[in-house]
């Protein structure tokens, strides 16, 4: 996995195996680079990464308290600003969903309102994991937690997720986005984009927690993807209040597929009555899909009969192979928003649009179409023979 080659977040920490948050942190740091100062809320992440005298942090890092991270980061930013260090050095504030949406909401609101040049990252594992899986404002509807347990008269948490994106937008933050560990490429891009923007930024990353969600530790990425593909956790990106990108789904997966592997939803599958609850959750997904326009229009390939005077398919294919793509042109074929998905490998450009392994131009959450993946092949779980099944549509221009 080429994307994980840097280690600003050192191994040896004590996160559970399969921890989505630990993975997300590495991705965030990798994208941010070494010129950042991080303020970290109390929570799993702080505990598993900073047990004195050990520390996983290869960047300057401070933990103060549970609910004040955005304020601590505001202070760091103010100090950097007055000493002329801001800009070169970026500031990231980060915390769990509890530290962000509940107890730390006031200080986050203050930071956003005052307009500090800080990226706030919320690692959303949908409960207070550090203290033993209690419900938070970002715990989803019907999830069973230790303080919103399913029981004879309870289906788990009666409320849905707090709309933190909407709340961040209401502050006028110039960059607000959601991401998922299931889509590292997208996450990487969003962190980089956010850090290019001056002002307060809010990024909420969906991070499955095998311990709290009670799923197999090998399913972290799979489950993260299912949350996105079902419409329960939309991947969104807002610039200056405008939705500039929403990760499209062609055929939304039924929420059941997402819920079933997770113990926190097991009570929904225990009998008939649970079906109603599942239907209610399906409704939540449908509402997200409608609200953010997540459904991708299926492209119907219009069949044009080859008549006299027109080029045949073979001729057209041959001509296509002659097409030369610059890197910038290639980038336009990223598979998003219904665009074709092309990739380059050893000088040739392949069309992977039809492949189920490249939905929306995304491959296993690791690679995005529109790029030269020659180097990445070395780390792939397969060889380049796999490309033979895809049509070649052109050549990649050499760098001049």
């Amino acid at each position, binding site marked *: 996995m080429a994307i994980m080659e840097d280690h600003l977040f050192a191994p040896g920490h004590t996160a559970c195996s399969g921890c989505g948050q630990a993975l997300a942190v590495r991705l965030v740091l990798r994208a941010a680079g*070494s*010129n*950042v*100062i991080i*303020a970290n809320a109390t929570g799993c992440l*702080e*505990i598993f990464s*900073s*047990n*004195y*005298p050990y*520390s996983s*942090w*290869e*960047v*300057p*890092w*401070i*933990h*103060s*308290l549970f*609910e*004040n991270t*955005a*304020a*601590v*980061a*505001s*202070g*760091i*930013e*103010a*100090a*950097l*600003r*007055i*000493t002329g260090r801001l800009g*070169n*050095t970026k500031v990231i504030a980060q915390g769990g969903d509890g530290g962000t949406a509940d107890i730390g909401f*006031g*200080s986050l*609101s*203050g930071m956003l*309102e*005052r307009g500090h040049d800080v990226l706030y990252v919320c690692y959303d594992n949908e409960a207070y994991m550090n203290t033993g899986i209690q419900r938070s404002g970002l715990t989803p509807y019907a999830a069973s937690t230790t303080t919103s347990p399913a029981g004879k008269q309870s289906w788990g948490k009666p409320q849905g997720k707090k709309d933190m994106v909407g709340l961040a937008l209401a502050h006028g933050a110039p960059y607000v986005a959601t991401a998922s560990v299931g889509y590292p490429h997208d996450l990487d891009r969003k962190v980089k984009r956010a850090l290019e923007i001056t002002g307060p930024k809010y990024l909420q990353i969906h991070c499955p927690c095998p311990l709290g969600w009670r799923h197999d530790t090998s399913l972290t990425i799979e489950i993260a993807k299912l949350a996105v593909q079902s419409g329960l956790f939309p991947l969104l990106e807002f610039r200056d209040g405008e939705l500039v990108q929403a990760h499209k789904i062609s055929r939304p997966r039924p929420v059941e597929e997402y819920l079933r592997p997770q113990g926190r939803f097991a009570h929904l599958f225990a009998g008939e009555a649970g079906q109603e609850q599942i239907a209610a959750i399906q409704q939540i997904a449908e509402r997200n899909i409608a609200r953010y326009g997540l459904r991708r229009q299926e492209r119907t390939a219009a069949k044009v009969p080859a008549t006299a005077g027109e080029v045949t398919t073979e001729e057209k294919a041959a001509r296509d192979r002659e097409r030369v793509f610059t890197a910038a042109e290639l980038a336009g074929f990223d598979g998003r928003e219904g665009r074709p998905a092309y990739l380059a490998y050893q000088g040739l450009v392949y069309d992977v649009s039809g492949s189920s392994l490249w939905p929306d131009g995304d491959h296993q959450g690791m690679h995005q179409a529109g790029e030269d993946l020659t180097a990445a092949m070395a780390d792939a779980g397969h060889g380049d023979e796999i490309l033979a099944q895809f049509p070649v549509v052109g050549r990649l221009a050499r760098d001049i």
Partner: protein
Amino acid sequence: MAKEILEGSRAVARAVAMCRPQVIAAYPITPQTHIVQELAQLVADGELAAEYVNVESEHSAASVILGASAAGVRVYTSTTSQGMLLMNEVLYNLAGLRLPAVMTCVNRAVSAPLNIWNDHQDSISVRDSGWMQFYAENNQEAVDLLLQAYRLAEDHRVLLPAMVCMDGYILSHAWEVVDIPTPAAVDTFLPPYPPLYRLDTENPLTFGAYAEPDKYTETRYMMQEAMNRALEVLPEIQADFARIFGRRYQGPVEGYRLEDAETVFIGMGSTMGTVKEAVDALRQQGEKVGAVRLIAYRPFPAQALYAALQRVRQAIIFDRAVSLGSGGPLATEVRALFQSAPDCPAISSGFLGLGGRDVTEETVINAYAQTRGRTVQGIFFDLRHDVEMEGVEG
């Protein structure tokens, strides 16, 4: 240096500006407001080059200066009463992180019932937080102690935050003559803040790590040692202060007319000005009385107090805060000082001036009369018997 007649808050704000903090964060609360408004104006007028962060709560005020101090700059905040209680959690954190923040506590009572007037309940409530605490008798001291607090807090032998406590209204809103130092003199006394460690991408460090039982005790030990060292460093700083500003402070405790005193009043803050006048009055009547004032409450000046009180027959301690269910915080500690010591004076103690109740010469003289020939603990010296206490006394 120039003597000026000005409001206490204004004098403090001017002194703060001369200390050149680079980040100020505060949240308004009566009677601290005049200080922070004046600072905001100084920044707005370009007379103070600082980031002034208008936070959404005192919890965040303390957190902002925490972040800024960790990033290596000098910081300031000010609060009182409910604001102090809301900051409480962060105060412990600032101290534990060994960040030399400085604040002015404009002392005020704590709710309920809501009361915006002066006593010491707010700062006393955070006495165990690891902040050093200094109590000003007048506005000149509120200024002088602020400068000394920065020097002491930032001294690498100490590295603990410090609060200068000044009585709400009585000092903060009082117009007094104050000798305002020149910026040049302050620069000589207080050079730019040299952080020992700071958040810096060139040298990435982890601040605020998690400490398990095998490490935590040592952090407390180191802080306690730093408190003890502060008592040793203070006279050094005071000597420097005297040299530059001409005003002499002698240690953490001040004695008044102790020469042949048999009875001594003990207390802190502006009340002690009144107490000194009462001492003068009683002396005129031939009573051998004196006063001892704690300037530093944290670190607790045990040795200096012991030395000052060793030869007196009777001590009367005035607390302006109550440890409900126990007694007077100051009294408890002073009594502990003499526990099983030879020549222990007869110690009486009680409360006065709670929630802004006036403390006059008469209050002190009455307290003296009430404790003649007997020792009493925890009495409310100025309790009114004409106020209906329905449902309270049962």
